[in-house]
């Protein structure tokens, strides 16, 4: 606890829920995490993240540009650690946030998540738990606010910087070691007897758009609602 009673719970919270930072939620220091607005140890935070990822509907990883391109030393290893994480979450999907530009007339929610319309990807894929990693903090923050406003998705952030008050569980200064620590925590929960919700669905699930691409078919974006 950080002396503040405001709790950052999954939504939908309504049209414009306040920014958690304006309700007294403060960012954690290195070695700590934030769970629903309260300061926790890193280990406790990782256990909460692991449990939510294994038990909620349609777990999805949203990798951002900071891990999608090997733009500086260490990023390729971090990207590899994200794939290792994905392989430990049965039934997980990976939908990238490759950039932040508005996509018109409408995004393809099976291809990307976009900070202008993040709700569309959450709603379309019925995602109830997600991990953001490698998204620049400003765009992660506005995306998290909109997801909390309009969806029931449990948001997890593995932040390369100071973390995010508006996600339900956030770990700051997360490099490949922290990602691998989450992977190991997931393995530990399984060893302790937690049966994943999608235990019978091995590996990473592809969306229809991703499936089409993987089969070499000509991909067409999802039809635009008129």
């Amino acid at each position, binding site marked *: 606890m950080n002396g503040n009673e405001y709790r950052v719970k999954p939504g939908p919270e309504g049209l*414009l829920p306040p920014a958690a930072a304006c309700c007294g939620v403060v*960012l954690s220091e290195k070695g700590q995490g934030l769970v629903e607005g309260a300061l926790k140890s890193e280990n406790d935070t990782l256990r909460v993240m692991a449990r939510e990822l294994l038990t909620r509907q349609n777990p999805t990883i949203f990798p951002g*540009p900071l891990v999608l391109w090997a733009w500086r030393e260490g990023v390729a290893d971090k990207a590899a650690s994200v794939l290792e994480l994905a392989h430990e979450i049965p039934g997980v999907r990976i939908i990238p946030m490759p*950039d932040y530009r*508005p996509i018109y007339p409408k995004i393809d929610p099976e291809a990307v998540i976009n900070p*202008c319309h993040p709700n569309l990807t959450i709603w379309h894929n019925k995602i109830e738990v997600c991990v953001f990693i490698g998204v620049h*903090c400003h765009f992660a*923050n506005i995306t998290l606010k909109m997801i909390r406003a309009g969806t029931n998705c449990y948001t997890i952030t593995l932040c390369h910087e100071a973390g995010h008050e508006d996600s339900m569980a956030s770990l700051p200064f997360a490099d490949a070691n922290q990602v691998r620590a989450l992977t190991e925590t997931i393995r530990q929960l399984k060893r302790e007897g937690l049966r994943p919700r999608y235990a019978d669905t091995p590996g990473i699930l592809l969306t229809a758009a991703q499936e089409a691409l993987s089969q070499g078919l000509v991909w067409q974006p999802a039809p635009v609602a008129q």
Partner: protein
Amino acid sequence: MANTVNQRVVTPEHLLFEAPRTKAFITGSEAASEAVRRANVDIAIAYPITPQSETMERIGNLFAEGYIRDYYRAEDEVGAFSAISGASRTGVRCMTASSGPGLMRGLETIASWPGHRLPLVFLIMCRVINAPLSIQPDNLELDYMLTSGNILLHGENQQDFFDYTLAGFAISEKCEVTLPVAVAVDGFFVTHARAWVEMPSAELKLPPRDCYSEAVPMIDNENPPVRIARDAPIQKSNFISYQMHAAWQQEIHAAHERSRKWVSRYINGLVEVVNPEAETLIVASGSAVSQSREALRQAEEMGKKVGLIKVKSLRPFPTAELRAACRHAKRIIVPEFNCPGWLNREVRATLYGHSEAKIADGPRVYGGITMPTELILEWLFKSE
């Protein structure tokens, strides 16, 4: 030749608090330029018109000496403030300065900086807003800055101008902040007058801006994550796009909240409290603090106990600190150098429901008038 290449990089903490300091008797403009000398600035951009002050001209000299890497003179304030937007987006450390009418001319651009998450330092030497034409001090322009989204520090004297300017760069570039920091002082009283200023060695400088560890990508066509331009959202789509704009604005306010920790760390708290047990309090910022200190001394000679709260940071505003400091107050006055009384308004809004003190609607001077200590004393003890 002494220049930025030969300076040694130290942490902001070392430069601000640990490095030995020596005293110099200098003007506020000189104090600001001495801060910039130690700030590892890449580019200064200005429309260096008098009577803003000689600050940007002195910073031009720093460019000639090799302490800053580039210097650009814009065609007017709109040009200067737009150019610094571009400079900040490319990831370099940058600063500019203005005042009064010039600031008002560029206000639309100033108000766009926070939304674009642009780290930079903006020095303000307050002066009258026209008309009628005047070049005298008056800090009315800070009223407009209060809702601009910029972090806004208000220095009391030449020493504050030096320290807050250096601190401004460190605060502005923190990832969870990533906002412009405006450092204001009252023109002429501070910019043109000399005072003793303690400064660390000019052989030291801040670390360079770490532009790859900020809240938004900067424009760098050589690095793939940044080839993605940071287009602002255009509200031509549907409901969600409007919601994105709303969330974007919320995020600026959230960043202000996150900045509290760093503002407090780098300028030693958002407020300074003198005589906290007093029931009669002065709340002031800027040069009004100096006049209030003297009024407080004169009140003590008269055997009266008066407290003083110096508000150092206007944005973020020291809400919790002010409420705590005014807990036992029975009477509060708010001396200001402007006609509408923007600090008075802030104090009333902050203390509403949190203090039983009677808050006087003044004293205020404006249009270039100085603040006599007799006026403060008269307002302090009016009710008696």
